[in-house]
Every structure is written in C-alpha cells, then in structure tokens.
C-alpha cells in the first residue's frame, strides 16, 4: 500500500484511540465524586429517599463499565444524558436533556470561533512571514515587543479594555454579545465583533510569533543557502524552495493556535455574555451539573484532537519522503 495512506491511517487510528482514552478519563471523573455529593446537589432539604432516587437516576447502582458503554453509546447517537439541573424536580418534573442545552449554543460558539479564525489565520501567517523575512528590522522588533506583550496579558484584560474603549467611551460596537437563534446574520456579526476582536488580538500574536519562528528555522536550511548561491532572487527562493517545505510547520502552527482559540472562547464568552458552550460549561461547573460539564469537555477535547490530527495529516501528505518512497 502507498506509505502515505498507511501513515495517515495509522495517525487516524491513533487519534481515535486518544479520543477513546479521553472519553474514559472524562467519564471516570464521576467515580471520584465525594460521598456527600448528592446531598450537595439536591440541597439540605434532601431526604435519604430522594438522595437514593437521584443516585439511581444517574445510574450509580450499576457497575461503572456498563455505565461507560451506555454513556458512550448515547454520545455516539448525540444523546449526552440528562442535566442535573432538573434533579431537583425528581419524581414529577420534566428532565432537561444535555443535548437540548448544548445544541443552540454549540452553533454560536462555532460561529464565534470560525469568525475569529477566518480573519486571524491569513493575517498572522502574512505578518509572521514578513517578520521572518525582515528579521531584526524595526518592523520585526516592534512586532516582537507588541506580540510578546499581547500574549502575556490575560484575555479578560484585553477584552475589558476593548469594551471600555470601543463600546463605552466610543460606542462603536455592542458591549454585550447577546444573540439569539433568530438574530439576522449582519446583526449577529456586529454583536459578535468585540469578542471576536479580543480573541483575534491574542491568537494573532501567538500564531504570528510561531509562524515567524517556523519560517526562520526553515530559512536556515542548507538548501536555502544553496538556492541563494544559485543566484535565485529572494522571491524565487521563498516560493520555490521554502514554501513547498513550509506546509508541515505552518499546519502545526495553525492547528496549535486554533486549539488555543478553543480555550480562549470560554473567557471571551463570559466577558461579553455570549451564549456559547464556554459560558454554559462555566455555569455548569459552578452548579456542579456534571453531565453537562462532561459533554462540553468531550466536545472541546474532540475539537482539540481533531485539529492536531489535521495538522499531522497535512505534514504527512506534504512530506516528500512519504510522497515519493524509495
């Protein structure tokens, strides 16, 4: 078989295994719950009967292995179980499914992350390339100092400064990003602008620095010196000799930063009260609504693993040694 196909298949297999292992870890967390957990959830008024009923309802009476397979089987069909928030209404009330909580918020988060990525990826690649090409120039030094500062500060600092300046002092943007499913597209973009910009600032700084480092590393290769000594102009050296070998490192940089973006949305959503799954997760942690936390964590981890997998695959399919085996 073609080594590319084998290597990609191996890598995908490894990704699936990792995902499986992660799902086991996330599931196993519930085993570590302290004993008094149920009464903490149900409040001090809970009777021993309601506690027992609650424990039965989340399946604590069954062996963990059985419960894992029930849970993961449900997840594969899009069923993440029921939220604890309805636990108080045990016996009579209607149970809210985790999926119904996550569904609309997931698309909001994807919209925010996608919007951010769409602008930051090309911008940071271009800036990183320029900084690498004009290494040690005034431009490079300035960008280095600015980005070093940006990546060092907390996201909420950036977010509140933007809010103070661009929404309160000069009301250009909405200070809160409260969107609903029937918000029209352009209004949605306008309302999402501030969280997106604050995320962009941080992501672009990270991605640009990494791109710069990757390109500088590439330009130090002996074959680049050889290309120069063949008398090629800088543009040809970059396009013909550096670029074909740059896909793997660039893929890694992009994936790494989009993965970082995943975490960044949590804070940005809370600051701008944006109804995404980041905010849902934070609320659920505070309320100790474990099924929702588990589901959100699994989604975040899945996106993270998938991005890294994609980067690896880009590296594999552009590797000349694998493309042209001996």
């Amino acid at each position, binding site marked *: 078989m073609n080594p590319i196909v084998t290597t990609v298949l191996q890598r995908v297999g490894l990704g699936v295994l990792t995902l499986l292992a992660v799902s086991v870890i996330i599931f196993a967390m519930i085993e570590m719950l302290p004993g008094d957990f149920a009464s903490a959830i149900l409040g001090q008024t809970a009777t021993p009967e309601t506690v027992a009923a609650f424990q039965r309802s989340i399946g604590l009476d069954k062996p963990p292995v059985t419960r894992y397979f029930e849970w993961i089987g449900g997840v594969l069909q899009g069923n993440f179980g029921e939220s604890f928030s309805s636990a108080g209404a045990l016996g009579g009330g209607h149970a809210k499914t985790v999926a119904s909580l996550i569904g609309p918020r997931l698309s909001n988060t994807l919209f925010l992350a996608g919007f951010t990525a769409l602008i930051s990826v090309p911008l940071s690649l271009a800036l990183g390339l320029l900084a690498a090409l004009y290494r040690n120039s005034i431009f490079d030094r300035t960008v280095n100092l600015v980005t070093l500062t940006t990546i060092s500060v907390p996201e909420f600092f950036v977010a509140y400064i933007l809010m103070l300046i661009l929404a309160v002092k000069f009301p250009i943007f909405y200070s809160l990003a409260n969107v609903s499913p029937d918000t029209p597209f352009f209004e949605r973009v306008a309302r999402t602008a501030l969280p997106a910009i604050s995320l962009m600032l941080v992501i672009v700084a990270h991605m640009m620095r990494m791109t710069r480092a990757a390109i500088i590393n590439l330009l130090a290769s002996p*074959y680049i010196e050889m290309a120069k*000594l063949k*008398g*090629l102009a800088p543009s040809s050296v970059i396009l013909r*000799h550096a670029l074909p*070998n740059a896909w793997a490192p660039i893929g890694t940089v992009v994936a790494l930063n989009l993965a970082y973006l995943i975490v960044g949305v949590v804070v940005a959503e809370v600051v701008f009260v944006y109804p995404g799954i980041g905010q849902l997760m934070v609320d659920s942690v505070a309320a100790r609504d474990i099924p929702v936390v588990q589901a959100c964590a699994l989604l975040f981890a899945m996106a993270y693993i998938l991005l890294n997998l994609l980067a690896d695959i880009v590296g594999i399919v552009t590797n*000349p040694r694998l493309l042209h085996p001996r």
Partner: protein
Amino acid sequence: MKPSAAPLLEIRGLHIQGQSGEVWQDIVKDINLTLRRSEVLGLIGESGAGKSTLGLAAMGYARAGCRILSGTISFDGLDLIAMPEAEKRRLWGTRIAYVAQSAAASFNPAHRLIDQYKEVPVYHGKSGEAEAERNAHAVFRRLHLPEPERIGLRYPHQVSGGQLQRVMTAMAMACGPDLIVFDEPTTALDVTTQIEVLAAIKELVRNSNMAAIYISHDLAVVAQMADRVMVLRYGRLVEEARTGEMLAHPRQPYTKSLWAVRSLNKSEESGGDVVLSVRGVDAAYSGVVKVLHDVNLEVRRGRTVAVVGESGSGKSTLARVITGLLPPHKGEIVFAGKPLPPALSERPKDMLRRIQMIYQMPDMALNPRRRVRDILGRTLELHRGLSGAARENRIVELLEMIELDAGFLNRLPSELSGGQKQRICIARALAVEPDLIICDEVTSALDQIVAEGILKLLLRLQKELGVSYVYITHDLATVKAIADWIVVMQWGKVVQQGPKGEVLTPPHHPYTELLLSSVPEMRTDWLDRLLNARRVGAQATSA
C-alpha cells in the same frame, strides 16, 4: 594587456569577522589570494581555519553572523564587495558556482534532481528546458551516474550520498562557470565512496578550462586536485606553494604536521595471554536490525587490536557489545578467562572497572558542568575508594601521566582544548588501572598534530602499564600507527583479520584491498594512478 593575463579572482587584505555570543571574532584575516583562469587552488586547514568562510567570500557571499570588515575581492575585474546583491545573483550559478559539503542537506527535499539541475540555466536564461535536460543527461553520463536519463527523475532522498554529491557537481557545471568553489565535497563520505566523487570532480575540472577553489582538511585529497595549495590556520595564511613542492619540501612546521599521523608506525608485537575473546557474536538493535554476524576476535595483554571498517560495518556496535550496553543475541564474551555477563547491569563492579572506554568526541564525553578534579576524582572514589589527600595526589599523578599538570584541576571542559579534553578522557579511563580500553575513533575528531600526540600518549601508556586496546577506526593511517593485530569489518562481518604486517601486505582480501587503495596518499599522482589501475583491472576482468 590581454584580458586572460589578468587573474580571474584577486583577494587583497581580506578581514572577516564572525559573531560568537556578544563579541565579534576574527575568522579570516590578512588574506591575499590570486587565482588564474583554469587553475585549481587548494585551501587546506583544520577545524576553525576559516577556509569555508574564505571560499564563500570568493563568491562575494557572507553567511548570516559574518561581516567583511576590510579588503577587496575582485572577480574578473568586478568588485564583489561593492556589487549590489541583484548583480551578484546574475553571477552566481552562471559564472561562479558552489558545491556544498553535505549534498543530502543542500538539495531541496521537495523537488526532483533534474528540476533542481535545470533551475540554474533556465532561471538565468542560459538555455531552454529541453536543452538543459539534454545537457544534464550528458553530464550525468560523464560522471558515471547510473541510468543517466532516469536518475534525475528521483528525489534527493532516493539517491545515495556519493551519487548525490556527483549530481551536485554536475549542477554546478550546468552553465559552464568560470569558477567553482568546492567546499569539502567528500568529507562526509566513506573512503570508498570518496573515490567516485573525486574521480568525477577531477574529470570535470580537467576537461574544462574553468578555475576552481578546492577546500578540504585533507592534504592528500587536495593534492590530487590542486595546482597550488594555501594552508590556513586560525584564519591566517601559513604557507602557500605549488602542490608538488609543498608535499616535497614543506617550509612551515605546521604544514609538516598535517601528515604527522602518517609518519607514525608501531612495530608489531605478538604474544601475551588472552585478555578478551569474543566468540561467535551476533547482535541486533531492537531485536530486528541485525548488525553483527558471527564475530570472533581475541585481544592479548599489552597489545592493540584495530577494528577497521566504513560506516555501517558494525564496528561501533561491537564496542557496545563488549561493554555490555547491547547484550548480544548469540555467542559469548570471555574476559580474563571467565565468561562475561552479557548485560551491563549483571556485571560486577570490578568487571566494570577492568574494561574502560574512550570516545570520538571528547566534548560529549565530559560533563560540561563538572571540573577536571570532580571528573577524575569520582572514578577514583567509586572504584578505588580514595578520598581527601590520597585522591588529590592520585589525580595529580594521573594528570602528569597524560602530560598535563595540577593547574588543570579546577578547569571546566569548556576551558580545555580538544586535545586536552581527550587526554582527560584517557586519564579517566586509566584512573582505575583497567586491563582493556576500548577506543572508539578517538582521534577522528582531532586535528592531525593533536591526534599524533594522543596516539603517542596511548602507545607510551601501553608500554608502561601493559594495558590492551581495542582500537576502532575508519582511518587506515591511524591503524599503522597503533595496531598489532587488524580486524577488517564490512556489513557486520569480519572479512579478514591477522597480524598487522600480514593484513597490510598483499595479497589482500578484495575488500581490504579496496579499502587500502582508497586511502588518499601524499602524492600528486595517486588518484590518476589508482583510476588507471582500476580501469586496467576492470578491462582485464571483462576480457
């Protein structure tokens, strides 16, 4: 004045500095160089001599972190220092070409060889695609590359090192340049592969009227190529002469030291009781890749067994098997009459003491954070239980044994020269009075004069202490200097072994013959004669 009478390249008073940390240091200083058309100039020097920097400067190129401080570089009347980059680029590849040391790293992994060859003439508008390709095939054929029409379709990683280096030479010739700079083109290759590349370069240089600068650390190699040789040291000129004259009558002691090791010749001795015997050893890495097949050898007290082979011969693996780092698959090792446990962890401490090892890179064999006193002292503490004044006295004694003194006690490895570091490694091995020392290419990373000192030291210590050596090397000149018994290895097997005199005098085993004949000799006509002899030999066998 006719233009051809003027030199092609003229460098005057060149001074180049390189950045190291926060300070600038001289790399090349006060260099004058003149190169006439169709002349080959050899630049020779050891590590840090500044020869590569000078070679690149001849093209008007300075690497990042280097700066040309003063001097003039004039190529065919053009001032390369003042010339703008864009104009230099019109010269590079067409009138001045470069052949780098490591072809494997200098070819772009993403493109086919033929495309990288064609790039130069097509980019500079010297010929069309089809014509460039036809030319490539012709040059590839002249350089005896296999399948000259097809080899260009391969990618760099699909071609062997020696072939790649020949393709790079062909690429440099693509536009018929006036000057080629060869920067150690054969240093990374084994001796038998080196011959192919040397033959190819010689063929091209002889049959064109271009000039060349040939850079190498090996005077014997340069002697085959160059009309004239410049010897460099620490960025300055030591001596310059016509090649034949330099070999016959070197004026400077340093020049003479360049073949110091070749002048050593140990008188062969035999006898003594057997210290180590390796019996029918097979070894493999991670259980799969078999690197040793049925290796047998014996080492006698106070004698040196040289294990000779090229890369991939398994000679270093043999060392790992003897020391216990790699337990063998099959066979046994008997030490001082008793079978030695195969794995390091099973060997008693006294066994560990009796077998010591010295490595190729003294830089890596000494912990950069520990001082000489601690390095030597720890071994004494561990195996001899020495401490306090007794320990200190023994360390000083050891330092004197290796011709250093107590002034070195507080030095860190970074405050020692390469030769001094290797001496400390020898002292560490000797500290515990071993029976056997395994020397793995111990002089390969050192300059000739330093290597000579180390070899003499090893010989003296052997005479005084009666220690045995297993001396692993690829360099046959060293073998003459130190061995009593020679073991020749190829692809994990012992192809021939015997007393030194017997192995080095004909009739040889065919591989030993190939190995011996491939070592460049200090004669200007060595390569020509060898190629002739091989041609005659080939005709004789085909007839």
